[in-house]
């Protein structure tokens, strides 16, 4: 008689977890899970509590887990709800979505742990967990990144090595694209940051006295919450 249950979900989440599990490549599996759950939340017809509210909770937890707002218990909560939604939602859509999350968590427990407990995204895909930097020894001072930045977060004039203001940077990635075909001088960094000048200096004047030594940035220097 389970046929009397009427599910009005339209379609299934687009992301494919099994492909990720086979080969995740450079992707962030937590972000993938986030996207799956965003889809599921949108697709839920609303008639069943595990699907309707479960996908909302899973999506909210994953949002927090990818933005540095998660707490220590959230990972257990995520796992608990995901299993329950998978097993009891009663509809293909949400049970597949939650099943994908359970599978991703099983295949990549460390990635989830890094996101939820350590505030890190190994794939540097979660904006809250990386910063963007101009490598002074590669920068040509062309200014393409400045043109591309919608936040006016990049300092420096012609012929100067540009410096990105981490506080203003929104991690949109446009400077990375702009520089990609020129000098490949702009990079994302997780907890380990490249050494950069504090203010723009003329191209060619950068002397890496640390011999490649990198300093660790402190949490409070990162407004997006990249906590150690």
């Amino acid at each position, binding site marked *: *008689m*389970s046929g*009397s*249950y*009427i599910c*009005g979900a339209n379609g299934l989440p687009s992301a494919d977890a099994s492909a990720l599990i086979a080969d995740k490549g450079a992707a962030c599996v937590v972000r993938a899970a986030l996207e799956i759950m965003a889809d599921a*939340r*949108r*697709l*839920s*017809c*609303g*008639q*069943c*509590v*595990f699907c*309707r*509210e*479960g996908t*909302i*909770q899973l999506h*909210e*937890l994953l949002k*927090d887990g990818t933005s540095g707002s998660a707490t220590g*218990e959230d990972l257990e*909560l995520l796992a*608990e*709800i995901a299993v*329950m939604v998978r*097993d*009891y939602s*009663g509809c293909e859509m949400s049970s597949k979505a939650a099943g994908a999350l359970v599978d991703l968590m099983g295949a990549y427990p460390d990635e989830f742990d890094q996101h939820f407990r350590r505030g890190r995204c190994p794939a540097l895909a979660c904006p809250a967990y990386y910063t963007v930097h101009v490598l002074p020894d590669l920068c040509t001072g062309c200014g393409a990144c400045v043109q591309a930045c919608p936040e006016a977060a990049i300092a420096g004039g012609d012929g100067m090595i540009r410096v990105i203001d981490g506080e203003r940077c929104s991690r949109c990635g446009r400077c990375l694209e702009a520089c990609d075909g020129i000098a490949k001088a702009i990079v994302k960094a997780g907890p380990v940051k490249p050494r950069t000048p504090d203010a723009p200096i003329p191209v060619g004047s950068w002397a890496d006295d640390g011999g490649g030594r990198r300093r660790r940035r402190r949490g409070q220097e990162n407004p997006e919450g990249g906590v150690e």
Partner: protein
Amino acid sequence: MDSSVFTVCIDGAEVRASEGQTVLQAAQAAGIYIPTLCSHPDLVPQGGCKLCVVEIDGFEKPVTSCATLAAPGMAVRTRTERVAKVRGLAMELILASHPADCTSCPSYLHCELQAMIQYIGVTHSRLRTVKKAHGVPDPRNRLIVRDMERCIQCGRCVRACRDLRGVGALAYLKDDDGESYVSTVDGESFGDAGCRHCGACVEVCPTGALRDVDGLFAKEGPRELALVPCRNECPARVDIPSYLRFIAVGEYGKAVAVIREKAPFPLSLGYVCARPCESACKRDKLNEAIAIRALKRHAAENGSAAEWRSAAIARAPATGRRVAVVGGGPAGLTAAYYLARKGHEATVFERLPAAGGMMAAGIPSYRLPREALASELEVIEAAGVDIRLGSPIGSAAELLASGYDAVVVATGAHDGRRLPIPGADLPGVVTAVDFLRSAYLDGGAGAPARVAVLGGGNVAFDCARTAVRLGASEVTVLCLEAEGRMLADADEVEEGRGEGVAIKNGVSFVGVLELGGKASGVRYESIRGFSFESGRLAVDALPGTEASLEADLIVFAAGQAPSLGPGFGVGLSPAGYVLADEATGATGVRGVYAAGDAVYGTKSVIKAIQSGRVAAASADRYLGGDGIVDETLAVRPRLSGRLEAVEGFESLGRLRPPLSPPADRRSGFAAVEGSLDREAAGREAGRCLQCDLRASMGAVATWSDLAAVKSAEGAEVAR
């Protein structure tokens, strides 16, 4: 044994179940509580809330019991650890998007969700708080309060509206972010969604999300009656929704049969009923009340008596007992009618030369044509009632002594009150009772040119409008009440005005003017206001405003009282009313019952009828009968409960019967109000919200209900 009945094992107990029953239903039938929010006895299962999960042997994981059919030999466990885990998380999920503060909710303590919180024992949530707000401005809907932030999307309202009613005004919708919510289709208004305002959605809502507006239904009394305000307010509890449904499909004879189940005067009531039903009508709060009285008249005028007559005059085998009814008004005639039907010999003694009480001697014939009354008296006589006209009775004891086994006193209130002002007893001063009786019973009376009526109720207008028809050229109603606060019905005031009746509001009477030993007018003064202090009138007069109105006839329409003296042999109140028990009509004198205006003062025909029914039932019990006067004269069709959506249903206006033009009204005694035509009657009856459909819906058993049943059973066993 029926092969479709089998046993299942629930929590170790052998429980009978039948084919087609769900596990949940089988458990509930056996008094085993399984929590649920989205399930409702009248609705198809949705399986959405997951609270009703149980473990069944052979199933790999807990399943929803509302959506699982019971099968022979099934072993069900309703309280396992896995089950508790599913229920607990489901409840947390539901509460994550529900406002946390119960005490500020109007449904506090009347909320299934709140009861469920207590049952499941979820106190605080570990989950993210989700705020869902889907505001719904809907100013035209004055019946249903929507508080959708309290909605838990259990879908009961959606299923009730779609599956039970076939209306489909409510649905799961999606907002721009893809978030689901429950609301009216095709916009924000119930009306635009084709809502029939049956209230099924409110009835099934387990939270405070959908509620009746405050004051819609009476708070006291049985709920199934309170939910049908027209019937609840009718003194005789006439099954109004049922007869309106018959009228809507043109089955007028059956409609009359329904009315006759409670009142032997359907046509007269169709003319003059005080219609408390219409004041109570739920539709009145939406836009305009159903024209119930006009519909009743239409049915009584057009229905075939074959539908009810033989049943309505059928009598139980003769009991050999004799009952005397003193007074042939609606109360006495009703009592006699039912006593005759119960097999007793019923004789009505009427003092006046016509039967009907105030319906014959007081109510103007332009409101109640006497042929209408006569047709109903004929049925009462056909049922075996012996009506003796011109037969005053001196005392109840004399009747008992002359061989009557019981007496019903229904002598009415025919003693018109004269105001205690100078000149009140002058020739040319009459009471309303006397004036109307001479106009409608004695016949041939005329009216002088100038008539002043003192009083502001319906009787005052009866007198004034009668005087107009009798040829008076200057008719004035003078009353204490300010304009718009008069006791008379607004229709009476308006129609009277239309016929040329002048109205002087806010005056108190100083005295009757005298000229040549005869009344010549009335002296009055303006007042700021008035009050009744311990039954005495206190006026706040405006000094220096005294004035006179010349009149040839002064009519006191200032109330009336019973005229029984202590010699009649029943207990009387200081004001002269018969002392009788309200619930039984018993007077304290063995075998003597009382009914009607003589007991409670002038009220209405329908109240008198109910009072007569009560007295008849009591007298019947006294005479050895069962005292049951309720009967079914029309078999109600089985209702599907389906209403279908009707575009614009919410704004359908009341259809009014035609009113004769004032010039025609002034010149004769023909009925002022016409009858609805067939088409209008069908449409008007179709406006009914059918509140009784909601009253017949199933109720959800809460865990505390079942706990009460269990403990009662336990007590039974213990004994």
